[in-house]
């Protein structure tokens, strides 16, 4: 079956794998007869996007996902984790894990830096596959719609990590916690490891970025920020629930944020041990 997608019927349809097609059909999204959901997510664009990431996810990178059962099979949740360097590779892998590992597959919505929406081509692709600008309005709406939201509380401070800092955590914002409390969404902490090995950034050029209209241009040892076929590890921890309205004073919210940060730090430590062969998968403590 060909999807009658947003970009016209006479356009050549790219190869869509059978697995991807079957999984797109099982996504619980309210597609219209045009194959477009109320946010403009396009069934055909999804099939094309995940067909491309399928090969990267299964063949190019060596991806290990542990604890995917902690991501709710339905209903809202906020996936909160660390940036591990390597631009936005971590986000793309988390989104792919939601599609390829979860039963039924689920579409994870990342909250993007706002400059991406103004880049031609990137803008069109991202909104077709459900990746929107990180605005509180979007986050609340998607969570109230019982979707999965991907949040990196380190923000742009986190994507700019150099390879040497890949498994450290920088300061967390509090916005995500207030949103989780206000929308009564469980927080699923996760640790991502290996991004710094895939894209070993040694420097970020902020001046050049300014000229190009992006925050910075990452430079690797081999200059171009192209990912190498690295080993990537993603560990989901047990969901955490926080009671409240989201209007509490900062120190109260910061306490919750610290709990999440500590949980992620522990998952990161265990992930490093797992990758070094010092720990078995069955020995990981998710709580």
């Amino acid at each position, binding site marked *: 079956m060909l999807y009658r997608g*947003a*970009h*016209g*019927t006479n356009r050549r349809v790219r190869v869509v794998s059978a697995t991807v097609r079957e999984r797109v059909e099982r996504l619980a999204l309210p597609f*219209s*007869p*045009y194959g*477009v*959901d*109320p*946010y*403009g997510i*396009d069934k055909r664009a999804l099939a094309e996007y995940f067909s491309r990431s399928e090969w990267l996810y299964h063949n190019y990178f060596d991806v290990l996902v542990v604890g995917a059962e902690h991501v709710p099979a339905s209903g809202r949740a906020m996936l909160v984790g660390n940036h591990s360097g390597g631009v936005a590779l971590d986000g793309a892998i988390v989104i792919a894990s939601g599609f390829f590992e979860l039963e039924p597959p689920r579409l994870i919505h990342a909250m993007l830096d*706002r*400059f991406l*929406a*103004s*880049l*031609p*081509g*990137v*803008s*069109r692709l991202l*909104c*077709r596959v459900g990746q*929107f*600008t990180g*605005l509180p*309005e*979007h986050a609340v*709406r998607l969570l109230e719609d019982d979707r999965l939201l991907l949040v990196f509380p380190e923000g742009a401070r986190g994507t700019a990590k150099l390879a040497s800092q890949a498994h450290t955590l920088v300061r967390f914002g509090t916005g995500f916690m207030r949103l989780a409390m206000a929308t009564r969404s469980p927080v699923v902490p996760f640790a991502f490891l290996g991004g710094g090995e895939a894209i070993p950034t040694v420097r970020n050029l902020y001046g050049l970025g300014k000229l190009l209209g992006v925050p910075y241009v990452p430079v690797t040892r081999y200059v171009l920020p192209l990912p190498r076929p690295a080993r990537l590890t993603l560990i989901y921890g047990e969901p955490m629930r926080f009671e409240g309205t989201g209007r509490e004073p900062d120190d109260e919210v910061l306490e919750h944020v610290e709990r999440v940060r500590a949980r992620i730090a522990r998952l990161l430590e265990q992930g490093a041990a797992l990758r070094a062969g010092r720990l078995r998968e069955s020995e990981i403590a998710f709580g």
Partner: protein
Amino acid sequence: MKVLVTGITGKLGRLVAAELLQAGHELLGIDRRPWPSAPPGVEMFQVDVRKRPAEDVFRTRRPDAVVHMATVTHLRHQSPDRFRINLHGTRAMVDYCDRYAVSQLVFVGRHTYYGAAPDSALYHAEDEPPMGLSSFPELADLVAADLYAGSALWRHPQLATCVLRLCYTLGPSGRGTLGSFLRGPRVPTVLGFDPLFHVMHEADAAAAIALALERRLHGVYNVSGPPPLPLSVVIRETGRKNTPVPEALVNLALGRFGLPRLPKGAVEHIKYPIVVDSTAFKSATGFAPAHSELDAMNEFRGASHPAYEASSR
């Protein structure tokens, strides 16, 4: 009820008139343009809303309610006159309503109020401020008129004021803000951008306006029908040809090669979406669109396009 409709000769005005007549209201119509084929039951006054003869209509005919639609909403039309009609016309209407004890005012505004920008949210709620003014100053008069009409809510509490923000309309008339953008066979888009467009059938829009009057709505409400669609789908389903232009060349290409002319800031409106949340209107009125987005686009496709034929001749 005696209802005064301003801008009645326009596409939407005529449809609203038909709705209100059917509901048994007595109609007064004000428009600068003539409406020779006005149906019986409509008393026409070919005057300008800002001029004294318009006030005289209030004085002598004493309407119970006003539906104010005499605004210029095109993204193309640029003139100092437009500013005067949109803002001063709205101000005059609010004043007359107060002075001549009108009990209800419905201001018909547009969802373009919210503006289009890379960091504006999908599904605007009524409490959001207008965002696009810095990139599209030509829209300032519509935004000012919308906010001015809204201020009647606290300035004249005895007047039931309702500000509607309607999404784009399409239908058999072939007209409207989006209709005039889509009028030619080729429709320009910005290469690499395909924003969501919120479109409803023009008959549904007219029904929604009549419903707001019927329910004596008080407040500001977004009005939309079916869910939004990508601009590329709207272009395809209306039988047009999508003509993507690199952003750097957009301003050169517009108005040439059979493409419509647009002011500079309007380019943001074909790069970024304006999508509204109309849950409040739907729950206050029980409004449900009678036409799908497909009907709206198909009927627009089958319409003749007088504006385009006249200008290409």
